[in-house]
């Protein structure tokens, strides 16, 4: 009697687990199953970051109604979406379309998982920086929907006027009685993305650019401007003014700004919500330059890629170019993320908001973040070199070592 009962418990466990496992499988394979089984009604599977599923529902439904093609939106975790895509596409189980960022392009293209996307004449309707970023080795792969860059957030209650230069910013903040008036996130391994505007102000981009975008053979990082930047960074670090501190990570920087102990915060649109929610009177300023040249931040472009193994390339292209590329859909996506739309007409409409306008103004100077695989080698050494300089290492030798390490890694 006892025996039978235990056997049954085991059997129940098998049934339950089998049900869970199988339902998991069927949920993930269901999409492609339909495409194959029934030829007359096609479907498109779109992987979207979970926060933007709702924003796309309208466009998806409208497209289904008009063409009879079922658009399946699958919410994915942003931290795993790229790796999942790279691994799933070769097996044929991946989606037709995936939402992502332009700096994935080098990796996606090297892995052969994305298909070129011909925007045709529609390319002229987008912001130039968005099209630049969507193009890799002369071919367009991305349908852009948003352009993102960092800018200087200013607590207008503490400092009423925008700063004209980096030193002016510190002076204005000190005049307001703050000991650390400016914060930017760093961390033990540095954060070159947030320091890049200052680096470009010294005329040291990472790569030179040619007709087909960034040229990996033309490393500009270690030029004379780079060394000047390193010297300046050292003078603003631990043994200097202390404006940069590797112990300040994203959370500490945010807290300092929200508490009002810092009046300037160099960050992106993703943090504006937290600041306004905390009741801070936020103004968006251009990034104060330490030199007389403009401080150009990196622009990150968000968009949609088409899978190289998609069985529905025609429908996917049509959906992206002719539906996602319309003002109404771009504005829907804007509402979900509050990031400047990539379509010029939508960008103009969105810029009625002063915050967005502020980011757009800064973004006019922005340069696309290089997507070439050589950039991976740069990231690997860049941050720790900058962190070392901030913490008092000799600026020029550290910078020269950075340039030679990167050069050696690119080969």
């Amino acid at each position, binding site marked *: 009697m006892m025996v*039978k009962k235990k056997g*049954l418990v085991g059997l129940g466990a098998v049934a339950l687990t089998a049900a869970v496992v199988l339902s998991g499988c069927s949920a993930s394979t269901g999409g492609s199953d339909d495409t194959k089984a029934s030829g007359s009604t096609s479907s498109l599977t779109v992987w979207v970051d979970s926060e933007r599923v709702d924003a796309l529902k309208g466009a998806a439904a409208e497209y289904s109604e008009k063409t009879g093609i079922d658009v399946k939106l699958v919410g994915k975790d942003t931290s795993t979406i790229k790796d999942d895509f790279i*691994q799933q*596409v070769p097996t044929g189980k991946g989606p037709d379309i995936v939402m992502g960022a332009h700096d994935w392009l080098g990796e996606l293209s090297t892995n052969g998982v994305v*298909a*070129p*996307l011909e925007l045709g004449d529609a390319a002229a309707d987008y912001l130039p920086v968005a099209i630049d970023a969507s193009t890799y080795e002369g071919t367009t792969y991305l349908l852009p929907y948003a352009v993102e860059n960092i800018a200087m957030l200013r607590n207008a209650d503490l400092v009423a006027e925008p700063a004209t230069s980096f030193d002016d910013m510190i002076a204005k903040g000190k005049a307001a009685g703050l000991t650390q008036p400016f914060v930017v996130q760093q961390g033990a391994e540095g954060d070159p993305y947030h320091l890049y505007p200052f680096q470009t102000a010294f005329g040291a981009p990472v790569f030179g650019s040619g007709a087909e975008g960034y040229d990996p053979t033309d490393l500009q990082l270690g030029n004379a401007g780079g060394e000047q930047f390193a010297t300046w960074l050292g003078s603003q670090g631990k043994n200097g003014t202390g404006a940069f501190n590797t112990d300040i990570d994203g959370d500490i920087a945010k807290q300092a700004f929200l508490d009002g102990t810092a009046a300037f915060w160099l960050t992106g649109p993703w943090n504006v919500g937290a600041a306004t929610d905390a009741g801070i009177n936020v103004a968006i300023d251009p990034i104060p330059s330490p030199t007389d040249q403009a401080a150009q931040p990196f622009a990150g472009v968000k968009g949609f890629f088409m899978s190289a193994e998609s069985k529905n390339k025609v429908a996917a292209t*049509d959906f992206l170019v002719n539906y996602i590329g319309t003002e109404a859909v771009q504005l829907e996506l804007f509402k979900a993320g509050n990031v400047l739309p990539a379509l010029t007409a939508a960008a103009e409409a969105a810029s009625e908001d002063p915050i967005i306008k502020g980011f757009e103004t800064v973004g006019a100077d922005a340069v696309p973040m290089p997507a070439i695989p050589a950039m991976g080698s740069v990231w*690997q050494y860049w941050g720790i070199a900058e962190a070392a300089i901030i913490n008092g290492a000799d600026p020029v030798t550290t910078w020269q070592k950075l340039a030679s390490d990167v050069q050696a890694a690119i080969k």
Partner: protein
Amino acid sequence: MSTITDDVEAGSTPPPTRNQKRAARVAEAASVGTKMLLLKIVLLGVVDAIALYALFVLVGHEQWLVAAIVVVVTALFNWIYFSPRKLPAKYLAPGVLFLVVFQIFTLVYTGYVAFTNYGTGHNGTQEQAIDSLMSSALVRVPDSATYDVTVIDEAGQLGLLVTAPDGTVSVGNNETPLHEVSDATVEGGLAVAIPNATSLDFAQVIERTDEITELSVPFSEDPNDGALRTQDGRSAYLYTSSLEYDEAADTMTDTETGIVYSNTGTGAFTAEDGSELLPGWQVNVGFDNFVRAFTDSSIRGPLIYVTIWTFVFAILSVATTFFLGLFLAIVFNDPRMKGRKYYRVIMILPYAFPAFLTALVWSGMMNESFGFINQVIFGGAEIPWLTDPTLAKVSILIVNLWLGFPYMFLVCTGALQAIPEDITEAATVDGARPWAIFRLIKLPLLLVTLTPLLIASFAFNFNNFNLIYLLTNGGPRDANAPIPVGFTDILISMVYKVAFTGQTRDYGLASAFAIIIFIIVAVIAIVSFRKTKALEDLN
């Protein structure tokens, strides 16, 4: 429970005869109520129904191998649970199934990947790589116009009916270059049909996507003029290709530079000077990954000190937690101590908090400029707890001591209480001092019971990824290392960095490392267990 009763019966009564055995079986079978039988049938029915559903899905996907496995496994389960005997199998079958699905499959797959070049640039099959190379090699002819097209079907062969921007209408397909036609039906400036061919509407275009993406209509007799291709069946653009694939020779030729890239068996088209066209594809590389793990000069340096630190970390973690736990267990086991119960509860509190949370809280407390420890305890000193290579290692051991000692305290308390008091009394009578009693009698007895746990704890800490990842993430970074490895990285976190960070992933190498780690841990465990057996024999 039943086994215990069986044992007792077997011990107390003489062995039953064959007839008795059969009678017992009949009685047992009869005692199974109809309710239980029904329940069994229902549950097995659920399993079978799910299997059947899975079978339909799998057959729909043409996954024959998996479908066959599902059939065999389901049949096996039915047989096991309907058979009146097979008692051990009834217990073991579910566990074995889960072991195979969740452990053995993963192990075997890791083993397989370790022998391939799977990683960035070697992601799929050769066929996919060729497709991808060819499609990205297409370059739109500069300043060429957009051509409005209608896809037409001429006796089963697809073609393009093209309306050029200047209004000329022409037709072509994969074989026939574009030529002008005069008898086309034009609607609103766009040619929509010609005689002897059907025009495809949008639904049909979608249906024949594969053929349309293959459709490339030469612009003229001269191949250098490029070909018209359409992505959406409405507008076409003029492309030239910078790559040419020779199927017979399995080579790629760059039409601009004339460089020939051939398939040399390394998983990518390679030119004579060694430059590769990426994407490549996955190939079996034999023991290459294992050889690289030990000989590649860029990996060897970090590998040596990471391995040393891994052993130091695992051994010291076990030693410190064990001795602190043992010390506290002895102290709180002393009957003279008042309120022991409450102290014991407080002692196991660190064990009760989630380890993830604890590691994150400690990493915040150890921040050099803002952390609680420097700000409050050391009055604003700037001690680089997590950023100095040596101190970061000490910090990790401290945090792991905090995380690990309650467990050791618990098991030591249990083991200590299991040692009879009269042994201590006898030793005292014989004139032994307390330290001698502990060192010569209690500790060996404790170790007999605790050594397996210490080995398990060693194996756990050897692969204690969570702590390293959350506390320092392997940092501070070693600026001289060619891979993004840090001074507190242990083997498993280094493997993670090789496989999952940066833009160049190397799953093959990471899997090879994973197997090496497995072998190390397994060897240590086996040797230690042998030693434990020897210890048991002594007593």
